[in-house]
């Protein structure tokens, strides 16, 4: 067992600096060990092969002796920083640090200090990513370097539905442009969004931590960053809080947690930063996403409104045929006709007129969507199934409701897995959707 332990140990070959030590010059004064602030070297005793001659005439004989030495510690915590203090204090030039080109310290650090077990020399990083980034010419005609004396820097970007210049509701009055109509809300934020990882895909604690970080950056440091919930719904407490304004609520092909979102709307104190409708599983186009049942813990069930089962996010939302017109009808019912086209967030008209994989709307349409959905549910009242009838007033009530749910048939299960198309096949399932 000892051998196994040793081959997994860190060695000084893994560290960025190696100590070069000449025992024949060393007087064992101990200055270097005393000077090393990183405790990277220590005195020790090694059994070494030495050639000695003790007679009056040379009679060299080889023998083994235990001799005191200074040696480097094999420890990632005490790695040599190459400060050279040992070299400076040594009276005999017996010791000095030497840079180790084949250092693997960064990989050790990545593994939490564990030694490298696989990969061998592939783990050697000859150069760093930052060294490889080439900042090319930023203007074709000239070679200006970025320079705050010459350039203005402003990293805010508009978030929301930006109108095309020709669509701006301006009238000209006495040589001045006057705003004479409604425009969608747009917020200027850092072009940084914590990207859509759902509760469930991320662990709840990690997801919560990112939420906290988002709110903290905004509230404390006035850094306008936003976070997207991902497609796994959102805790009701968050939807009712003031911090919802920093969150982008996402709906995707799995429709997870959306009846809870709809039902939370009357209790929302602020608008969310936006809603993001993910029409396709961009990164997983084949089979879509899959959250294995093992990860669907009770609180995930509560937030998403689902049983403990494998959760499939289909590759597309089946209610949307790949027709631009159909898409428009489905997801933009409440916007004025002139503005009703699905747009990518940048609104850049030079983008190909393709079906966008994500569509971002700013906050206001969600209110009107709520109105239309409540109209829809009044128009077609239907008995909710047991799991659907939960009132998400509190997380605990969701929890208790969901725990009691049992899948009764394949058809009900299919509705979970396949989204609204399958759901609409059954008249007794009034899944709240944005529109009819």
């Amino acid at each position, binding site marked *: 067992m000892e051998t196994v332990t040793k081959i997994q140990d860190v060695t000084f070959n893994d560290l960025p600096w190696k100590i070069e030590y000449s025992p024949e010059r060393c007087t064992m004064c101990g200055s270097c060990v005393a000077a090393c602030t990183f405790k990277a070297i220590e005195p020790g005793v090694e059994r070494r092969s030495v050639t000695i001659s003790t007679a009056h005439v040379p009679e060299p004989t080889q023998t083994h002796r235990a001799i005191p030495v200074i040696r480097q510690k094999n420890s990632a915590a005490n790695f040599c920083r190459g400060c050279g203090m040992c070299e400076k204090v040594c009276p005999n030039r017996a010791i000095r640090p030497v840079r180790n080109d084949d250092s693997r310290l960064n990989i050790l650090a990545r593994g939490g200090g564990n030694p490298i077990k696989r990969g061998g020399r592939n783990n050697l990083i000859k150069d760093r990513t930052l060294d490889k980034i080439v900042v090319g010419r930023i203007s074709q*005609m*000239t070679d200006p370097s970025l320079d705050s004396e010459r350039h*203005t820097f402003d990293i805010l970007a508009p978030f929301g539905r930006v*109108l*095309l*210049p020709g669509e701006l509701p301006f009238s000209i009055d006495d040589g*001045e*442009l006057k705003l004479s109509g409604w425009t969608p809300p747009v917020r200027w934020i850092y072009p940084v969004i914590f990207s859509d990882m759902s509760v469930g895909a991320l662990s709840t604690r990690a997801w919560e931590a990112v939420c906290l970080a988002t709110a903290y950056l905004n509230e404390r440091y006035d850094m306008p960053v936003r976070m997207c919930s991902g497609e796994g719904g959102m805790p009701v407490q968050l939807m009712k809080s003031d911090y919802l304004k920093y969150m982008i609520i996402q709906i995707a092909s799995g429709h997870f947690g959306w009846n809870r979102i709809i039902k939370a709307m009357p209790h929302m104190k602020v608008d969310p930063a936006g809603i993001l409708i993910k029409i396709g599983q961009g990164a997983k186009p084949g089979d879509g996403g899959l959250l294995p049942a093992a990860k669907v813990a009770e609180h995930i069930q509560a937030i998403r409104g689902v049983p403990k089962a494998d959760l499939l996010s289909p590759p597309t939302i089946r209610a949307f045929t790949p027709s631009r017109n159909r898409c428009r009808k489905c997801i933009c019912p409440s916007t004025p006709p002139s503005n009703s086209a699905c747009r990518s967030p940048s609104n850049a008209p030079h983008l190909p007129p393709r079906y966008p994989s994500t569509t971002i709307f700013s906050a206001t349409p969600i209110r009107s969507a709520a109105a239309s959905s409540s109209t829809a549910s009044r128009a077609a009242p239907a008995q909710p199934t047991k799991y659907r009838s939960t009132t998400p007033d509190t997380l605990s009530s969701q929890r208790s409701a969901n725990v009691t749910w049992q899948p009764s048939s394949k058809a009900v299960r299919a509705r979970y897995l396949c989204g609204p198309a399958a759901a609409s096949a059954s008249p007794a399932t009034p899944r709240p959707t944005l529109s009819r």
Partner: protein
Amino acid sequence: MCRIGAIKSKVAFHPSQALRLMLPQQEGHDNSGFAMVMQDLDGVFGQYKDKPLLSLACTQKGAQMVENYMEAHNFARVYEWVPKLNRKPGLDIKAMPHYIFRCYDYPEQVQGASQAAKEELLLDTRLALRALLEKENQGYAFSLWPDVLTLKEIGDPRDIAVYFRLWDDSGELMAKNVVVQCRQNTNYEIVRYAAHPFFIQGYTLCANGENTFYTKNKEYQKSLHRGYIGFESDSQNFLYTLHYVLHQLKWPIKYYKHVITPLPFEEIEKRPDKAELKLIRQSLGHLEINGPNTIIGMLPDNSLITCCDSKKLRPVVIGGDGTTIAISSEVCGLNVVVPDRDPATDVYPDEREVVVITSDLEVQRWKQ
């Protein structure tokens, strides 16, 4: 860095004035080219002010191709002026075989059409000619517009003037407005289309500087209008934005500066028109420019406009004597062209200022 300038006068003058404006600024350019756009013409073109004037530099074959195209599209030739070239040996000029300045009558089918329809036709025709010549590398069509003449050439401006006999002041080529540039080549292959001033549908513009947002501007502008092509120079962005704001959006001229160098957010928040300014910034953010620049533009109504980047890193000065007003990168140019002016009245616009010289030589200036 190029040197740019413009002259506007109540009386028509010769192009030699433009050369006199630019040559004292020679330390700032490297004699690698000369270009000018003349508007409100006099001399030989004085009686054809309403006829589209084509400015062309091409080969024999290119001339034939253009002639065939114009004939096929019912443009009737009204007048042609071919400069009498001085092919003196030793001149530093990379001349084209033919320079043609030709006035046409509009095709019969658009004679009664609206001004807008005529403008679109002239643009389409120029773009078609450019594509035709470019495809076979037979020449350059610089402008096709009533009362506008463009000359661009590669070489030493003094030699170019000798070649075209611009020093002669023969009375043939005269105008009340000229926008002019002496270029400094920045180690790229010289393309005639890359020489300022640029022209589209009555709007002329030249700029000196470096537009760091060239790519961002270009990608967006390409989607805005069929006429926004070429992009041989990062300064074409300024022209296309000027055309887009004034001609396409039909916004008042004061908003041009708000588009290219928007105010910082904290300043916008203090303004009564903050809602409008923020919307402009949202929707036209891709037309913002960056880096040191000065712009001189000429509008269809013969007025001139000039402004700087948001840090005023490229200088410009405006001075006049009541009959003539000139805009110049350096004041030494003004001293030659309008020597009798009162230098105390010269205007040095700052980073937030826009100066417009109206057609009756009134100087308007305002802060953005």
